[in-house]
């Protein structure tokens, strides 16, 4: 069983490039060139230097002693929250902007949900001196105000997406429409393992540095590069793809993807795509997505803007279908509780997204000798308002 994309851009039954003809030349150019560019020595050198000196990689793998004692097991946190800009997103934006430059593009567009990908894109655009336009749902602009301010400070233009549910899905629609209207000079930096082939594979490759480092760090710390379990949250699924990547073929490592259950899976206010979704087409790829019987894409809900997406990347649809990854979910309340626990026991304020992964520790019942790695994909500065509000409540 292969968990990698095939030559047609599919992971098993999922993936492909379902794009209007207007986007064909751009996506095709990328498909033709991405692998050879990424593999060039000077590309690798430039990327690795920036990851080290600009992002601060490798991100630490931290043994969370008090959290481990609490759950009576061994918990390591992969500290993507300590990256420059505060999340894993920059691993991907750096890779893609170097690619965009080599393709001669001068104008960068991106979508963003929580604002982490928008900030990471605005950051690398400032670094490279390229024009940056970020599409963000109107609802998300309100609930993630600090990140909007950061993007603007970094010189990006933030355009509100006012159609549909006014969240991540609609921001992605607007970015795609912008690309249709500006095919020649523009490069679209997609923030997750979604979109038409080759995006899911390309983003997974740029995020795979997470599990590459995890292996080395675990070998150093415990003498074994394989943990028993890796847990990551999944919206589109880029941090999970990166955390799972180098373990996909090692079936002894349990991979657990935690989706946002929102107010409960059956509440009608949820983003748990693996449970609520059916195969369909969203943003250019065939994957699992939440939709009506008539094939209209429905509006998901999560307290966390980064998980508020009605689909999952096609790689995750494949991991779900084949059973390679276990899919779990955490409600808003469970995520909040897990975030507060991490604050209390470890002095780390996690992003609401990452708190969903932490929340799964309650249900995991890990054994005392087991090693569990949680991908702490981002930090919680952007979520302070939500945290403060729910503490009062």
């Amino acid at each position, binding site marked *: 069983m292969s968990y990698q994309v095939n030559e047609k851009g599919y992971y098993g039954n999922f993936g*492909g*490039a*379902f*794009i*209007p*003809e*207007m986007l*064909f*030349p751009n996506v095709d150019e990328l498909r033709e060139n991405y692998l050879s560019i990424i593999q060039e020595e000077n590309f690798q050198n430039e990327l690795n230097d920036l990851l080290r000196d600009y992002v601060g990689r490798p991100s630490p793998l931290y043994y969370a002693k008090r959290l481990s004692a609490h759950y009576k097991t061994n918990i390591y946190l992969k500290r993507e929250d300590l990256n420059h800009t505060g999340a894993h997103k920059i691993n991907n934006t750096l890779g893609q902007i170097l690619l965009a430059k080599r393709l001669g593009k001068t104008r960068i567009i991106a979508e963003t949900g929580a604002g982490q990908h928008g900030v990471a894109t605005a950051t690398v655009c400032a670094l490279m001196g390229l024009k940056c336009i970020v599409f963000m749902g109107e609802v998300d602009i309100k609930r993630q105000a600090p990140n909007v301010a950061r993007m603007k400070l970094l010189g990006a233009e933030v355009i509100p997406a006012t*159609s*549909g549910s006014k969240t991540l*899905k609609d921001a992605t*629609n607007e970015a*795609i*429409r912008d690309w*249709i*209207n*500006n*095919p*020649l000079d523009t490069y679209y930096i997609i923030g997750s393992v979604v979109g038409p082939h080759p995006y899911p594979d390309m983003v997974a490759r740029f995020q795979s540095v997470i599990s590459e480092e995890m292996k080395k760090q675990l070998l150093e710390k415990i003498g074994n590069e394989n943990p028993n379990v890796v847990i990551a949250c999944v919206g589109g699924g880029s941090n999970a793809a990166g955390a799972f990547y180098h373990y996909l073929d090692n079936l002894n490592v349990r991979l657990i993807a935690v989706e946002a259950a929102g107010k409960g899976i059956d509440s009608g206010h949820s983003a748990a795509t693996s449970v609520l979704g*059916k*195969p*369909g*087409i*969203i*943003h*250019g790829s065939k994957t699992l997505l939440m*939709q009506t*019987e*008539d*094939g*209209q*894409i*429905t509006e998901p809900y999560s307290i966390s803007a980064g998980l508020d997406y009605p689909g999952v990347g096609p790689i995750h649809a494949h991991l779900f279908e084949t059973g390679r990854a276990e899919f779990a979910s955490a409600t808003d309340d469970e995520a909040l509780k897990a975030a507060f626990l991490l604050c209390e026991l470890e002095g780390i304020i996690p992003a609401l997204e990452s708190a969903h992964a932490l929340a799964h520790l309650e249900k995991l019942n890990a054994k005392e000798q087991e090693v569990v790695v949680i991908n702490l994909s981002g930090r919680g500065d952007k979520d302070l308002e939500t945290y403060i509000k729910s503490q009062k409540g």
Partner: protein
Amino acid sequence: MENRINKLFNSKKKNILSVYFTAGFPNLNDTLTIIQELENSGVDMIEIGMPFSDPLADGPTIQRSSEIALENGMTIKLLFGQLKDIRINPPSNANAIAPPFSRGNSELPLVLMGYLNPVLQYGMENFCKDASALGISGVIIPDLPLQEYLDEYKSIFEKHNLKNIFLITPQTSEARIRLIDEHSSGFIYMVSSASTTGAKSGIGADQELYFKRIQSMALKNPTVIGFGISDNKTFSKACESANGAIIGSAFIKAIDGSKDLKKDIKDFVKGILGERALV
């Protein structure tokens, strides 16, 4: 039976006017009235939009008409129900606003336009079978790429005598245009400029060059220009370089909030066709 799209292009080579509307807009049950009035006004082909929640290739006008149509409750099933009497005279359902059309039974080619996901949920085989049974002649699915069509769906379309209509744009390579021409047998939809629907209007020098380039390729299929065609001037200009043109967003705007749908449609088409309009 000869496909009505082929029949049209075999009998008429120039100035073909195709109009797009979103089914379910402005009101759920306007579908037959709009089709009837467009035909009576002298339109040659009609594209019936199947609304989708996330229309990636569409600008604000068609996005909004799609949202309203979905709020009104439009679905493919419902649309097919509305269309069931379109080729039958007299209608089997006495309540339907249906033919007879003023020019007799409708022979106008009807093309369904929509996005892939709702069609997949309906089921491609069933969709083609049911559409064909209703007398639909072709389908435009912008997010169904050529290769996917060839690998998965071409035989289904052919079995049901449905033409799949492909788009080309100013950025489409010559080799790809040749490939699309080879696999098309209805017409080729020329997107006038790099844009979503309704985004730009007017035809500039760049577009004229592109139109000339395509003309000089002498494709086996007829060509129809769409996107940015909104009035008599742009329609006439497009018709100089292609067999016809398609109007969508401008028509949606014209019937938005209409108090007299029939009159507004008649006036709109008259405005586009100028002296050629049937009065």
